[in-house]
């Protein structure tokens, strides 16, 4: 084991130095020694990513994923799934894996979203059975989701599974009644009737074949077949027409194409999330946790969901829902309920600052000064516990400002401070503004200000964390096909010297035909800056071959290539490129200066080269004699000059 650790450390050092090939070799040895260790596959995948070998990276990540699943280490498995999708969003089966893992972890909302994504992708691939399976899983997680059930009905019909479709429709009927949505019943009943007619027609034909005669058959609810046929023939034709034209695969019951985006829109429409809030996995309310009889009929009942999460000990999720519920009550000015929610959060997280800030805000809004003072004192205590003494002082100061009974409050503050013996008494500032001003100011600052301070005192993050968080955010907000934004991001990263990130962004941008060339130019520059000369050379050579561009557009690339050649002493090739550049633009950067320097270097190299060939000649005596003669001639000429000077002097 110690050997493995030593090898891993060694490999990690090579990774830091950018020597990925060596790192890979060592990690592969580690993998041979312990093939069942998922972490090693993960590390190898990372190295492949750095080497821009995506396929190999994904293969390793998948191996890691399988092993993590095998040992039921779900958090890591989820992380690996996300990494795979970050590397390649088209790894469709991973959405299914991820959903399953979220189920294992009890994150139902995330599970549903990933199943829906998987279903959407399966539909695009024409894999109806897989699509059906995914929707079935969604329904298992959220049985009251009527829209998903309706979609399943359409799929069953398309697949000719009428019995299953009828079963679903009957379940939808029950749910509509339970949810008090009787107005939607006729549509479902009509569909149900059509399907039953189809079944009946089949039975009738069978009977006809058996008996050879025609009998009047009745179906449920006392209708005759003829009655039903007259009344529903249009609907039936429409369904068949749809089935033919659309294959019933692209349309949901409303006739809209079903995509993850459209799903999210629907969810957003029915939820209480404010318009300003972007739809993300985080703010999407998940469906029911399990098959609860009293399950909320929409995904918006955050309070119930929070309690549900608490019942399965998912505290973090519960708190998230409570904050959402609190925010909604605040927006509705329903302060009594908001207070209840924030107090509930404090029960769960006893020293959390944010709910206290909210409570202060509510107290001020409702002019409940007593509560405002108490909550300021309370937040001061929490800040003390967190070691944020200056911030605690400010909170106590605010409490002092808000009360006329300063002595009592001051005594209480001193008592708290006495326990810590950290903050000096005189640091507590006397109030300088009136209560009215303070209230006005609080209003203006909004919740954002007060809440924001929590992070400042409680959880500063490292730059690496920040960058990762930022990248995650970018990934969620910028689609892969938004090539221009990826290009812009590449520029920002490059300017900051974050070359690894810049490379990834320019790679994405270069997939956009319109900006391919300029992206490749920047990509090459980044690679040169990173010292990955061979890779840069490949990129530039490929870019220069791109068609439908004018020669002038390649000058930057050629200049970079010339610099590469210059760096690796391929001076003639470099000079050739500089000449080409100057031919089109004589003032392009410092190409002319570079060319002169190179030509000088090339001619010196020539001389050296010739001298290297000369040694055999030196063996003969003639050259040495020549040198002697030359020396003598020089001396003679010098002598002549001296004589001339003397003569001149004498003339004067």
């Amino acid at each position: 084991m110690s050997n493995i650790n030593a090898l891993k450390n060694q490999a990690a050092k090579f990774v830091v130095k950018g020597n990925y090939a060596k790192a890979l070799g060592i990690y592969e040895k580690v993998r041979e020694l312990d093939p069942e260790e998922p972490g090693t596959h993960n590390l190898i995948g990372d190295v492949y990513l750095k080497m821009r070998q995506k396929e190999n990276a994904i293969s390793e990540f998948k191996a890691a994923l399988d092993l993590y699943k095998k040992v039921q280490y779900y958090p890591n498995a989820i992380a690996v799934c996300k990494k795979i999708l970050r590397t390649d969003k088209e790894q469709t089966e991973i959405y299914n894996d991820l959903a399953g893992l979220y189920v294992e972890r009890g994150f139902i909302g995330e599970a549903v979203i990933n199943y829906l994504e998987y279903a959407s992708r399966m539909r695009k691939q024409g894999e109806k059975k897989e699509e059906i399976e995914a929707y079935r899983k969604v329904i298992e997680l959220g049985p009251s989701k009527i829209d998903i059930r309706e979609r399943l009905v359409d799929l069953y019909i398309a697949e000719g599974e009428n019995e299953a479709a009828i079963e679903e429709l009957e379940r939808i009927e029950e749910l509509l009644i339970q949810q008090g949505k009787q107005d939607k019943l006729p549509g479902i009943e009509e569909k149900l009737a059509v399907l039953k007619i189809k079944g009946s027609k089949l039975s009738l034909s069978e009977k006809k074949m058996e008996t050879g005669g025609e009998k009047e058959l009745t179906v449920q609810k006392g209708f005759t077949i003829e009655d039903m046929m007259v009344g529903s023939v249009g609907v039936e034709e429409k369904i068949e027409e749809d089935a033919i034209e659309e294959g019933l695969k692209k349309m949901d019951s409303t006739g809209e194409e079903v995509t993850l985006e459209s799903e999210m829109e629907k969810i957003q429409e029915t939820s209480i999330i404010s318009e300003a809030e972007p739809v993300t996995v985080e703010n999407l309310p998940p469906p029911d946790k399990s098959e609860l009889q009293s399950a909320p009929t929409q995904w918006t009942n955050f309070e119930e969901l929070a309690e549900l999460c608490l019942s399965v000990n998912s505290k973090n999720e519960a708190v998230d829902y409570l904050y959402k519920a609190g925010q909604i009550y605040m927006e509705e000015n329903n302060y009594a309920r908001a207070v209840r929610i924030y107090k509930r959060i404090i029960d769960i997280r006893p020293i959390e600052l944010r709910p206290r800030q909210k409570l202060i805000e509510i107290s001020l809004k409702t002019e409940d000064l007593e509560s405002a003072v108490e909550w300021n004192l309370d937040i001061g205590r929490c800040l003390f516990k967190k070691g944020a003494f200056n911030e605690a002082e400010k909170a106590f100061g605010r409490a002092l400002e808000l009360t006329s009974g300063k002595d009592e409050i001051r005594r209480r503050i001193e008592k708290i401070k006495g326990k810590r013996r950290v903050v000096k008494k005189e640091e507590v500032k006397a109030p300088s503004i009136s209560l009215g001003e303070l209230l006005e100011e609080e209003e203006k600052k909004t919740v954002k200000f007060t809440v924001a301070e929590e992070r400042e005192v409680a959880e500063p993050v490292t730059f690496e964390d920040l960058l990762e968080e930022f990248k995650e955010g970018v990934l969620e907000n910028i689609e892969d096909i938004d090539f221009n934004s990826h290009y812009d991001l590449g520029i920002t990263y490059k300017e900051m010297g974050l070359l690894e990130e810049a490379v990834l962004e320019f790679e994405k941008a270069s997939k956009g035909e319109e900006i391919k060339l300029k992206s490749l130019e920047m990509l090459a520059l980044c690679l040169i800056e990173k010292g990955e000369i061979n890779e840069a050379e490949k990129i530039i050579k490929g870019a220069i071959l791109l068609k439908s561009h004018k020669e002038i557009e390649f000058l930057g690339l050629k200049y970079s290539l010339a610099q590469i050649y210059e760096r690796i002493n391929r001076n003639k090739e470099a000079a050739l490129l500089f000449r080409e550049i100057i031919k089109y633009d004589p003032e392009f950067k410092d190409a002319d200066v570079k060319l002169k320097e190179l030509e000088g270097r090339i001619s010196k190299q020539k001389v050296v080269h010739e001298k290297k060939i000369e040694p055999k000649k030196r063996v003969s005596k003639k050259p040495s004699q020549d040198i002697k003669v030359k020396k003598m001639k020089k001396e003679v000429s010098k002598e002549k000059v001296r004589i001339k000077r003397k003569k001149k002097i004498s003339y004067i």
Partner: protein
Amino acid sequence: MSLINYASREINCKIVYYGPGLGGKTTNIKYIYSKISPGIRGKLISLATELDRTLFFDFLPVDVGNIKGFKTRFHLYTVPGQVYYNASRKLILKGVDGIIFVADSQIERFDDNIDSVENMKENLAVIGLSIIKLPFVIQYNKRDLPNISSLDKLESILNPMKVPYFEAVATQGIGVFDTLKACSKLVIRTLSR
């Protein structure tokens, strides 16, 4: 230092909005985004933490036309204001072509403004730059609030170099474009030399 792409004949200039936390840097950039034509701007990348503070940086690319045959784009950035994000601020300042300092006019933020200016100078020095040599403009934001420092006081402390300054109410867009225009002109002048 402007970044040039020869394939597209494009110059990218970097203007950074600097200043204390919650001073209105992001508000400036968001207002600009909301008012300029989508045809000449890129996507606004503005990610906030769950506490609604700038996550790493805000970014908005804006096309400003041709200069010497090169399509010129201004990349507008904001830095995160919180004290402990100094590493990010240093990175964002790399390659900067112009700085807009957004000061918070509120009396209680006066010291924060001074700290932020000092921090900016220190960070520039680390990357071998000086505010004296850079296009630099100051914006005194939140002028609509009741508890603000006087302009004279702000000027005397924050603007000893007497660079162009503007009073602003970024939430209403007042002074936002004036500030940007002034800085842009200085950057273009430097670029044209």
